[in-house]
């Protein structure tokens, strides 16, 4: 016990963060308090600022501090190609690779009738709007290879049939991966998607 209500409250809040448990939250809070000049105060200021300004982009669903995010407004991004991802974390992963130069659309989850998540909960209507308004010619479905992810991919592909080109990310051997460590399903997918050298 830290014996102080404010400190305990902060530890309880920090312990709710992904990747942190009560023990690591205590360590983090102790560290912040010891370095309150360099860390705690700037962190509190930055968190307050973000709390006031953070919002979802009205266009693509990315997180930013304006109504329309930087990625949607940047003039050097290519129009016409739209990469559909489940979550903002997936968008960030794509951006880390710095390969894709088009625009994004974040669904905010996957279809799941059992969990009561339908197309209208997923920004799919907005995706259909954007295809027309932004004159999109290709939609890249970068959805997770789970059953819900693939159901959502099929759903979107079905909606867009004959309207735009719909592609999905390839499945197979990861770069630097060893065959010996791959599961049977991945090896099967990789073999089916083999390419001529």
């Amino acid at each position: 016990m830290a014996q102080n209500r404010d400190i305990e409250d902060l530890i309880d809040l920090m312990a709710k963060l992904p990747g942190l448990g009560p023990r690591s939250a205590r360590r983090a809070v102790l560290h912040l308090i010891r370095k309150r000049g360099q860390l705690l105060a700037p962190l509190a200021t930055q968190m307050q600022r973000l709390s006031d300004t953070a919002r979802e982009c009205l266009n693509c669903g990315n997180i930013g501090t304006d109504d329309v995010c930087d990625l949607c407004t940047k003039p050097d991004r290519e129009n016409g190609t739209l990469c559909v991802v489940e979550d903002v974390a997936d968008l960030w992963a794509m951006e880390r690779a710095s390969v894709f130069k088009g625009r994004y659309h974040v669904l905010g989850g996957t279809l799941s009738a059992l969990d009561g998540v339908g197309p209208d909960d997923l920004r799919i209507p907005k995706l259909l709007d954007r295809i027309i308004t932004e004159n999109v010619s290709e939609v890249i479905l970068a959805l997770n290879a789970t059953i819900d992810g693939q159901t959502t991919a099929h759903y979107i592909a079905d909606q867009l049939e004959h309207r735009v080109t719909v592609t999905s990310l390839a499945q197979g051997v990861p770069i630097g991966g060893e065959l010996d460590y791959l599961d049977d399903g991945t090896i099967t997918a990789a073999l089916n998607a083999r390419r001529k050298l």
Partner: protein
Amino acid sequence: MLYLNELTLSHFRSHKFSRLHLDGRPVAIYGANGSGKTNILEAVSLFSPGRGMRRASASDMTRRPEALGWKITGTLTRGHRSYAIDIKSENGAARRVDLDEKPIAQTALAALSQVIWLVPNMDRLWTEGAENRRRFLDRMALSFDASHAEASLAYEKAMRERNRLLKDQVRDPHWYRALERQMAQSGCQIHAARLHTLAQITAAQNNADTAFPAADLALDQGQGDMPDTIDDFITALADSRGQDLAAGRTLIGPHRSDMLGRYAAKDIDAKDCSTGEQKALLVSMILANARALAHQTQTPPMILLDEVSAHLDAGRRADLYDEICALGAQAWLTGTGPELFHELGSRAQYISVSDQGGISEITQHEAAAQ
């Protein structure tokens, strides 16, 4: 050959600490009702993927009242190699499997050990609902091909999603098509695996010199046939949507299949056979499953036969023991008394189990105590 040469049960059901030293011969376990014989078989069943022969949760397997969790340790010999396998659950948590002290997925056990079983609640298999016959068939299919479990899970998940749409009277055709495509892909895989399994079992029955009656086996769909291709299945599901909406569930697909059995020599349905004949048909199928696996992998599986002698006369029992020994499988058999294993003689190892104040005590014997 595949066998456990050491097995330790710690706080597992009625066993506080039981250790067996084995040499690959069949293991005959005898003792009074409730002494803890079947618990040993259940522990062995956990050396294959799935929830074991009782389909129990990990927390149900812990010894009470202590409820500390449980651990099963086994040294598994396969061919010339030996593997240390630990299976444990702590404080009611999900089961964990370690192979040679490294954690592995439970499904990875499929590549190492195959375990098949016949338990008393299967005695009514031919007379009860189709669900248990499908489960019996799917376990056989799984023993031949580990990917059958994945296809079954994928199909089940997509179908539950579709059933929810049907129940909620959702009409969005795109959503249905997305789910139906997934159902068709996994459903066709399931159907093909089941047909392949029946063909394997039939061939193994026909090619064997066995005292047990052959069963003519077939898959039945109830209404109509199972579509042959993924595209046909997608079309069939789309066509059936109206009826399914009215019913609130999916009316076609491999979840509606039934395994039909006939006593071939007498040409009568298995469900109309006597209790003993029904049991003999099941024994015949389990032995055929073991032979087919031995043929496929060059290694006979471990076979668990719980109270199998209950409906078999002395002659049939002797035939069963001869066939198990000829297969070279480590079979685990239970019975209430040592006399049930008389015909096995020195071809088996013997273990007696007794209940000592709520704790199972085991004793290994060189021969069945009389």
